[in-house]
């Protein structure tokens, strides 16, 4: 039994639904390129970052929410008009962010466990 809730979603609509159902909570979101049938993402940086992020999840605040969001396939992501880019203003994957705050780590920043830990543990 973990001290945080993990939610797995796929695509923008599912992401928004998960967030709206958890108003008032401290929500961390990790955005990754879709994984194939073998569980491997088309995004090599996402493959590299995921174990680093998962490795720090024990440091998530009590009662917080961790949303693992697969954004879509590579062509969808490359389209500059996709909802993640237009509405959430994501610039790249992987992105780890704290919803409703300017706190975010993008791409190579997600490889650094101390930065991930800093986001999970500091106010």
């Amino acid at each position, binding site marked *: 039994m973990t001290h945080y809730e993990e939610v797995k979603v796929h695509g923008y609509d599912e992401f928004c639904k998960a967030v709206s159902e958890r108003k008032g909570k401290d929500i961390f979101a990790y955005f990754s390129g879709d994984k194939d049938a073998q569980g491997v993402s088309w995004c090599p940086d996402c493959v590299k970052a995921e174990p680093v992020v998962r490795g720090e999840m024990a440091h998530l605040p009590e009662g917080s929410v961790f949303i693992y969001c697969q954004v879509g396939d590579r062509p969808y992501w490359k389209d500059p008009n996709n909802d993640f880019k237009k509405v959430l203003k994501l610039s790249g994957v992987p992105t780890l962010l704290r919803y409703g*705050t*300017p*706190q*975010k*780590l993008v791409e190579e*920043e997600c490889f*650094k466990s*101390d*930065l991930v830990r*800093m986001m999970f543990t*500091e106010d």
Partner: protein
Amino acid sequence: FFLGKYDYDLVIIGGGSGGLACSKEGKPWVCTKWGLGGTCVNVGCIPKKLMHHSALLGGAVRDAAKYGWSIPDKVSHDWQVPGSAVQNHVKSLNWGHRVQLQDKKVKYLNLKGRLVDEHTVVGTNRSGNETVLTAENIVIATGGRPKYPANVNVALECAGFLTGIGQDTTVMVRSIALRGFDQQMAGLVTSHMASHGTRFLWRCVPKKLEKLPSGNLQVTWADTGSGHEEWDTFDTVLWAVGEAPETKSLNLEGVGMALNKDTGKIIVAEDEATSVEHVYAIGDIGEGRPELTPTAIKAGKLLARRLAGVSSELMNYRSVPTTVFTPLEYGCVGLSEEEAERQHGKDTIEVYHAFYKPLEFTVAERDASQCYIKAVCQRSGDGRILGLHFTGPNAGEVVQGFALGLQCGATYSHLLATVGIHPTCAEELTKLHITKRSGLDPTVTGC
């Protein structure tokens, strides 16, 4: 090298412009109390420039009609919109600094620091718990906290953008505006504000501030000119005032540090050293230092390099350009006319000047009567430029490039030899030729 005695090479108290710049050069320990970024990011330059821009856009919207755009008759402003956008931007800057510090392995602690002796700092957290740190060197970069009352350019900038977004604004000035700046230029800035809706109460000092049952504030003041007392009611009163360093909470007197008696600021040498060995001070807290972000940043970086033994370069505080972001912006670099006269004598300087009209003001039918440029030069030889002054749109952008010229020792001859970019306001600097001494009309005629 082997450190031995102390926990850290360097401890920096203060996470503003100076403190952060210094910390990113080395591997020290930073304590801070505002969000990271200090005064500049959280409550200073950044929010100020964005609000100033907000107000300027109101003017641009009105001008747009004259350039063919269909603009509704009534254009209103909602303060909350830029307010929250600015807050979000400031928070993202705080986060950016936090990530940078972490990345550069700078240990950041959200504590209130005070000095115990020249090698020891005690940091206290919100719950009152203390942490003791020892360091080979200590840098104080805590800046200032607002005290009252005094008039600073910030007051004018605030009044300017508030008037620009449609607020009925009054500025009370004890003696002169923009103390330390060229007074002729200060006069142009305030005349412009007065003719565009800001009310000025010159030579007045506040005597009393009362909250009325209605919730409004009643201010009573003494007009030192007439000797009379007057009053008025306002929704909000803003003390946009000078700053005093937090020397007591830092315990500077306790460690025997020499401070200026009037300002309370730390007396610093040209290498930022204080009177206490191993303790340095950068940024606003230093006596006589310009209260500017870029000088604090540069001084911080150079100090860190000197302490690391990587360089011996000192900060050059001469010819620092700056801009006052009033509705009519004023940018300058070098000496004011008064200061040039004081240092060189009126007979050995030549002042070239011009009243010009920005092209965009013509179609917009805007008043350009305070748009003015002057170059204060040495009279002899090629006429070394001692100071440049410019009021007009984008003054900061205009003056920045000319500051490079002053660094290189530019002369009036160089200015004349420089071809202007047309049509711009900046080109008028290259066309200056009427001297104050000649008494001729300095108004530029069209091209």
